[in-house]
């Protein structure tokens, strides 16, 4: 195998770390035989599958980013619970108060992982579902549409997560 460029090596390293973490959690053990097999398998997969991404690939390792990660997790869990109470309220209401629409919102995020996490987060938060993402635009289905205006919708749907993800991934 010819020498790998630095970018490739970093990306393979990030994949390896994620795979190793996954392996240890899957086995629930730190015995040496488990670690050896896991290291061999993870290294093989990280080297063979060259398009691999991992949640660490594009992450920034600044203290601010690590702080933002915790902030993001807390905010996400809060929104997830809120989202379910919202759906419950809609579903249990005899009148079924839905007035849906598909709105277009803007994101500043450039990294692939950041955008994937943003879309997933939006899907799991109150009344919104990412239908498509194209360049810097997200198309979001909104069960109880509150604003058709693009800036207002962006502020309500995207801004909360984006502020964290921007620090984490850029």
């Amino acid at each position, binding site marked *: 195998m010819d020498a790998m460029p630095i970018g490739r090596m970093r990306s393979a390293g990030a994949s390896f770390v994620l795979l190793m973490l*996954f392996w240890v*959690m*899957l086995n*629930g053990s730190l015995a040496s035989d488990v670690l050896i097999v896991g290291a061999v398998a993870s290294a093989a997969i990280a080297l063979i599958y060259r398009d691999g991404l991992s949640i660490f690939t594009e992450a920034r390792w600044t203290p601010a980013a690590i702080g933002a990660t915790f902030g993001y997790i807390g905010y996400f869990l809060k929104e*997830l*619970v809120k*989202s*379910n109470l919202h*759906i*419950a309220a*809609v*579903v*249990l209401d005899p009148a*079924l108060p*839905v*007035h*849906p*629409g*598909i*709105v*277009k919102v803007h994101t500043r995020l450039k990294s692939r992982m950041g955008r*994937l996490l943003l*879309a*997933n987060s939006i*899907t*799991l938060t109150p*009344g*919104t*579902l*990412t*239908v*498509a993402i*194209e360049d810097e635009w997200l*198309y979001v*289905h909104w*069960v109880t*549409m509150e604003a*058709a205006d693009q800036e207002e919708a962006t502020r309500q749907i995207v801004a909360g997560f984006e502020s964290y993800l921007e620090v984490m991934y850029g």
Partner: protein
Amino acid sequence: MAAVLDILGGLLLVAGTTFLLLGGLGLVRMPDVYNRIQAGTKATTLGTLLTLAGAACLHPDWAIKLLLIGLFLLFTNPLSSQVLAHAAHREHVATTPATEVDLLDEETGEEA
């Protein structure tokens, strides 16, 4: 202590399955595919997460593996819903008449 964890675990299990039930109800009541996907994804994700947390309380030594299943679901569940919603939109599945705007239709230039 163990007894408290047991009760907490049982309550979390019931809370989780309650959300699953609400998701099922949403699936039946919601007027079109997109709204059904919304109800389905959100309720099942939180519902399953709570169930997993409940199981972790009942069997603390399983916590790591349950956490792994939860994390896996957090990535796969919304992703499959998004792909499904996108496919439905590409195939022009009608939205409910209550829908106010659909900004995806005219702008992306996907083949009609």
